[in-house]
């Protein structure tokens, strides 16, 4: 029996290819997502290992995550530590953020995501004798007019050693034009993962970033041979002045890595969700393919039964075939998954997260998951139709047409409706109640709804398919009629094929609706709250030099310049944002007090918005304690509670001076400009101020709204790119079904050709059938997507996204695109059908 199975398997190469293909794709997506996710998990730990010393001395309480600070350690500490037993050398570092390299086309290198770092050049080795970032070309920088870049930044900016470069900082000296004298790189491999690094000599770095203070932002102590990091840390700690702390390099690296991991943890979740989607879509493809294949083999299987094989033997034969195909498919899929992970890595590099220097992580779990998924799904997919096959009376093998007994359509309908009900309930629970892991419940609900819709779709799609057939008949005549009839011939197959597309499009539509609604909310917020005439802000939301505000105030026609600074602080282990403004500007910004008066808003006090006050239980006069700022704990007096105001991006507001005292940098995050009556040529004069500073732009209300919408568009686009891959599986599913249908109907195709159907007409017929499937999937997907999208928007309506907006144009594009998808999917099957030898086709049994 086994021999017969393998013979039958090898005897039909195309069938083998088709079914394997389905598995390969499904598994590849699971494998690719897992591999990339693991790689994301590990690369950062590796990265930071070579960017910390054996022991790091830093201002106490700084930790990581608060971003830039002006708190420093005096240079004298370096001298003190040199005599610590076990210390081989001590090096002071200056590190500043928001130091952008601008390339020859006046474009910022990098920018989004990974930081732009400036600092001092040091030849100190990293911890554990790692070489760290070291000079590989040229010479170290000397004096105020020389700089070195890391190799990747040099390459991306296109500057060569000896050339004058262009650097924009957020300090008082907004624009620098030093000469590039050297290149830094990791001699033993490693990467800054997309960050840029520009280093000056130590005194220049101190002048630029520490206002000339002879101090450092942190200190590296390198251990003597045989001295451990912990021993050295303890020895160092004894000599430290108050306000500083020593941590081992391992700790510092872990902290930095876990911070970054947390920042990108949504990416991993996202990828895993995506793997789940791929798996479901892939499983659809596999189940569908095997149903068709087994149906096509039913005659052969019935013959085996007639020859005396037992039901169990027949089932086993199908399962063995599925197992073999599953193993082969999973193996190939795993290989393709690696390629896919490389593709995602390249995609992320485009978004600024450059991991190209990191090897992909190939965990045993990934291999296991791929095989389990590939083999089990395949066997399950084969088992269902195989069981049906065994119910065929053996005598039917001798007849011409075999109809497989199908499960009752009513039972299926009922099952599907129950599924939709349960799924909708789960979605509701996930959205509106406080069940634990609401996100998972919601996702599961969506999945169950999708499966339910798939189950009922053969019934609910009937009117659609019938209408399509009628339309086709009118528009395309007989060929159209034939195509329409074919899609109605086996509604289960048609709808199962369409389901893969439905899932992808339902999710795409949901995202489109979320994105569009978010944009509409932004527009509304901007319209209602935009004050002044222009907004000056960084393209990347990063701080910029305070000198820009000073220069803007001097521009003719500008009456007033309002600064905003944003700071990160930590309370109860959670980070939150504090906005800093000048108390004189509160009225201009339209801050409406609900409690307290603006007159009480002075240094050392804080204004909180209504929501925050409620969450934290604050009222006027209370003391609000912020546990972590660059200078440690900060106590603020609550001066008032204001109505939520979208111009203020954070729930708490304090004064500029308070932030400065607490060690936050004095760079600005946003400026609001109020113009006088004469605005002729004003935009041009303002643009001239920031001409050489491409990180900053001057926008009027419309441009500001555009800029606020841009990140939403980008996120939606990224999700579309990933869902696009699900679309690819769906298209291949259609190709698969059509190709198999053509094989199944070989004789009929031959007949049609024999009685005069031209190749063109045949191709048209298959293309029309394909388009019906694709449009059906799209219609179901768009309808579901609209339901999901509205449900989700409804759920988040309290969080500042009040507008539910349906992007009709985009949804129409989805439907139109599905027609194109249908046409494309038909290319291969219809060519194949066209090439069939008429005579042989008719003779086919």
């Amino acid at each position, binding site marked *: 029996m086994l021999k017969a199975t393998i013979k039958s398997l090898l005897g039909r190469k195309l069938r083998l290819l088709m079914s394997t293909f389905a598995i390969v794709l499904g598994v590849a997506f699971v494998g690719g997502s897992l591999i990339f996710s693991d790689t994301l998990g590990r690369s950062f730990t590796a990265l930071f290992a070579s960017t910390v010393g054996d022991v790091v001395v830093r201002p106490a309480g700084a930790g990581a995550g608060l971003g830039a600070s002006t708190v420093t350690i005096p240079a004298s500490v370096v001298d003190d530590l040199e005599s610590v037993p076990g210390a081989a050398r001590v090096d002071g570092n200056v590190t500043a953020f928001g130091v952008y390299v601008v390339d020859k086309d006046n474009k910022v290198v990098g920018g989004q995501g990974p930081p732009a770092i400036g600092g001092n050049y040091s030849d100190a080795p990293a911890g554990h004798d790692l070489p760290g970032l070291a000079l590989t070309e040229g010479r170290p920088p000397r004096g105020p007019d020389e700089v070195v870049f890391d190799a990747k930044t040099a390459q991306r900016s296109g500057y060569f050693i000896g050339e004058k470069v262009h650097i924009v900082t957020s300090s008082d000296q907004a624009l620098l034009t030093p000469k590039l004298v050297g290149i830094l790189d990791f001699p033993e491999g490693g990467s800054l993962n997309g960050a840029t690094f520009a280093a000056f000599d130590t005194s220049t770095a101190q002048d630029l970033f520490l206002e000339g203070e002879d101090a450092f932002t942190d200190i590296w102590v390198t251990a003597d041979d045989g001295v451990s990091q912990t021993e050295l840390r303890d020895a160092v700690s004894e000599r430290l002045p108050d306000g500083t702390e020593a941590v081992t390099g391992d700790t510092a690296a872990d902290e930095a890595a876990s911070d970054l991991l947390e920042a990108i943890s949504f990416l991993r979740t996202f990828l895993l969700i995506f793997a789940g989607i791929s798996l479901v879509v892939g499983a659809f493809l596999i189940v569908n393919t095997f149903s068709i294949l087994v149906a096509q083999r039913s005659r052969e299987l019935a013959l085996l039964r007639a020859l005396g094989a037992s039901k169990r033997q027949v089932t086993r034969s199908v399962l063995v075939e599925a197992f073999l195909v599953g193993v082969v498919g999973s193996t190939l899929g795993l290989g393709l998954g690696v390629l896919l992970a490389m593709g995602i890595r390249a995609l992320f590099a485009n978004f600024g997260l450059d991991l190209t220097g990191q090897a992909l992580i190939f965990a045993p779990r990934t291999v296991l998951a791929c095989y389990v998924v590939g083999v089990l799904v395949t066997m399950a997919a084969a088992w269902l139709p195989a069981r049906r096959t065994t119910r065929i009376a053996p005598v039917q093998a001798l007849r011409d*047409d075999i109809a497989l007994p199908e499960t009752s359509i009513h039972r299926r309908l009922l099952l599907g409706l129950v599924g939709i009900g349960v799924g909708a309930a789960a979605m509701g629970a996930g959205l509106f109640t406080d069940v634990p892991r609401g996100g998972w419940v919601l996702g599961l609900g969506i999945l169950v709804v999708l499966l339910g819709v798939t189950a009922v779709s053969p019934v609910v799609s009937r009117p659609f398919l019938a209408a399509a057939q009628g339309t086709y008949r009118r528009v395309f005549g007989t060929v159209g*009629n*034939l195509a329409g009839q074919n899609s109605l011939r086996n509604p289960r197959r048609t709808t199962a094929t369409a389901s893969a597309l439905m899932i992808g499009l339902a999710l795409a539509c949901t995202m489109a609706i979320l994105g569009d609604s978010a944009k509409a909310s932004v527009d509304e917020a901007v319209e209602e709250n935009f004050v002044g005439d222009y907004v000056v802000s960084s393209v990347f939301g990063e701080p910029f030099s305070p000198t820009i505000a000073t220069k803007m105030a001097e521009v003719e026609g500008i009456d007033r310049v309002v600064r905003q600074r944003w700071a990160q602080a930590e309370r109860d282990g959670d980070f939150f944002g504090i906005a800093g403004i000048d108390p004189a500007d509160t009225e201009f910004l339209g801050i409406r007090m609900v409690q307290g008066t603006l007159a009480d808003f002075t240094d050392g006090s804080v204004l909180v918005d209504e929501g925050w006050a409620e969450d934290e239980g604050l009222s006027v006069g209370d003391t609000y304690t912020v546990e972590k700022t660059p200078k440690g704990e900060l106590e603020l007096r609550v001066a008032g509670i204001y109505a939520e105001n979208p111009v203020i991006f954070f729930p708490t507001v304090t004064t500029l001076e308070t932030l400065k005292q607490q060690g936050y940098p004095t760079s600005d995050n946003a400026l609001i400009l109020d113009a006088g009556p004469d605005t002729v040529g004003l935009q041009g004069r303002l643009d001239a101020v920031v001409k050489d500073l491409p990180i900053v732009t001057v926008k009027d209300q419309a441009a500001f709204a555009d800029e606020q919408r841009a990140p939403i568009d980008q996120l939606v686009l990224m999700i579309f790119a990933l869902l696009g891959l699900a679309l690819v599986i769906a298209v291949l599913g259609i190709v698969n079904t059509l190709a198999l249908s053509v094989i199944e109907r070989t004789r*009929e195709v031959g*007949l049609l050709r024999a*009685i*005069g159907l*031209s190749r063109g007409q045949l191709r048209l017929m298959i293309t029309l059938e394909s388009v019906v499937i694709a449009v059906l999937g799209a219609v179901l997907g768009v309808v579901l997507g609209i339901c999901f999208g509205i449900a989700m928007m409804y759920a988040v309506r309290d969080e500042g996204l009040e507008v539910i907006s349906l992007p009709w144009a985009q949804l129409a594009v989805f439907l139109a695109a599905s027609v194109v998808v249908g046409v494309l999917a038909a290319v291969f099957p219809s060519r194949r059908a066209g090439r069939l030898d008429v*005579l042989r086709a*008719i003779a086919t049994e």
Partner: protein
Amino acid sequence: MSNPAARVVGLTKTYGTGEARIVALDDVDLELAAGEFTAVMGPSGSGKSTLMHCCAALDTADEGSVFVGDQDLTKLKDKELTRLRRDQIGFVFQSYNLVPTLTAQENIVLPLAIAGRKPDAAWYDEVIATVGLGDRLTHKPNELSGGQQQRVAVARALVSRPTIVFADEPTGNLDSRSGAEVLELLRSSVSDHGQTVVMVTHDPVAASYTDRVVFLADGRIVDEVRAPDRDQVLEIMARMTAVADGV
């Protein structure tokens, strides 16, 4: 006699190469007169099916020419062959070969519909009447008996008034009564409407409905009978078998 509906000149067709080379047709010359019912008979492997397929533009000749009307099939491209099959040739297959998704009626007019033509109403009515399906015309093929399906297939072949109708073992799958009905249908199309019909068969009874029987053996025409009766055909076939067996 008028011009032949189809003729083959020096038709040769081989399959395979080397040792496995089989000569299916060996320099065959044949004229098929218009308005005649011709049967092609011969033992299995005699080349009768190949001959028909070549005449019907379903297969290509290695050597020689095939004419349907005045057109030399060997000089036509696929597109022209398709049009020729559509407009000038009708088919009846052993296994009916109806399109399962279409009703009997839709199947009958399919060749015309594909060509984008309307059936000639009077002729259509007549064909429908002779097929004698009555109210079953709106049924799908799987709701019809074998004989009914084959009568639909014959009607499909006749409805476009082709130059020639080819029937490949049209009664092979039918019981004798259904078979007789199909043969009557073909006979009357020739006698009453002047249709040219060529039928491949190895049933002597079927052959007795025709005007002329051509016997093939080993790819050559070996005998021919006009206005055959069943016994005559049987006798020739027995003789051929005897020759083949070397008795």
